[in-house]
């Protein structure tokens, strides 16, 4: 599974961090960091993260 975040859209709401903490996090500077190729076992939580992003900035490519 490949995850792409449009960082031009991202406004640091952090909803993805709640939904999929294994994949998304904030770095020390408060910027979003994420695992671009998470294990397929995490698909449900990554889909949830994509759903709850207020800017709809998260794309899952199979």
């Amino acid at each position, binding site marked *: 599974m490949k995850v792409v975040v449009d960082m031009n859209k991202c406004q640091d709401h*952090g909803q993805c961090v709640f939904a999929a903490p294994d994949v998304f996090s904030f770095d020390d500077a408060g910027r979003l960091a994420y695992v671009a190729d998470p294990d397929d076992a995490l698909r449900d939580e990554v*889909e949830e993260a994509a759903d709850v992003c207020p800017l709809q900035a998260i794309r899952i490519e199979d």
Partner: protein
Amino acid sequence: MRAPIVVAGASMAGLRTAEQLRAAGWDGPIILIGDESHMPYNRPPLSKEVLAGRATFDSLAFRPRTAVADVTWRLGTKAVRADLDRHLVELDDGEALTYAGLVIATGMRPRRLRCPGPTTGRHTVRTLDDARGLRDALTRPGVRVVVVGAGFIGCEVAATAVALGAAEVTVVDPLPLPMIGPLGEPLARALRDRHEQRGVRFALGTGVTAFEGEDHVTGVILADGSVLAADVVVESVGSVANTEWLDGNGLDLTDGVLTDEHLRVGCRPDVVAVGDIARFPNARYDGVPRRVEHWSIPTDTAKHAARVLAAHLGGTESGLAPFAPLPTFWSDQHDFRLQSFGAPALGKDDIRVLEGDLDGDVLVGYHTDGRLVGVVALGGTAAAAAAARHRAELLKQPALTA
């Protein structure tokens, strides 16, 4: 062929429910009926980025999951009548659909002011077409703007209008402070001050009685007799549920569609309601049914209702605990953000500043019986992050009635 699940309403809640029905195992037909001609799109940017001219429609459109590639979209069409005993929905083109399951997702429309006067020049912000029309009006040079209603949309539109260079922007509301309902007095006062510092004027504690002008609005007459000159009026005075098509089925349609604790409607296991039309009890709090117009609700309700409906149609029970979402909202205005978790409106009798102060970045806590029930941050991203740190605690809480 199997009867379909009919999803009445093809906005965010309808789309998410279709996706979640597939995820819950429903592999039969799904028909989505939407009165707008557009595929589902994200509405929050309408009062901000779209008005400001920074977002295109392509950037708003949701990307439906591949699991719903086979659903039928009936756009530019709406449900006009339902006969729930006969499992029938009638469309405005005369067609009648027989359903196996029905999802009520027809949402809200803006409430309109009924005062006398011209209607041209008066705008609402609900749809993409609304936002485009308002942008055209706001970008004319030197416009004077009156925003009626100091809630989420009114405050966001006022901020965007100032940024677009409007000559005057005045927000009118009968209440004494903007967003005082969701925020309570201390934060609403801080919000008003920030707007005023950035060029927004307020006429608070007074309502609108009439509009001036011949064909086009030229002024807004207030209850205290004063008149505000206006080239553009924005009405952001709440919303009305699109329930008329459900009349005659014995449902409780006072303020949306009443549901049970699993979002089922009228004791019918084959009918659910989702999104901001659903008036549901939240098991996390006091169990009083309420409609919630936060952006997170379409997704939360879709997931729960789809599992309940798919299980019923598969001849089983979902086994889910009663629906108990953690409310969350945000609002971007000028250069600051409001970010909330929990239910601040239930704790407005005991409001405490938790971090910072009301003149700067601030985090405010709302309490019931001494217990934190909600937080709201006002300021930059650091304030929003401070609110997020309380989310886990708010999620852990047992119900108030427990």
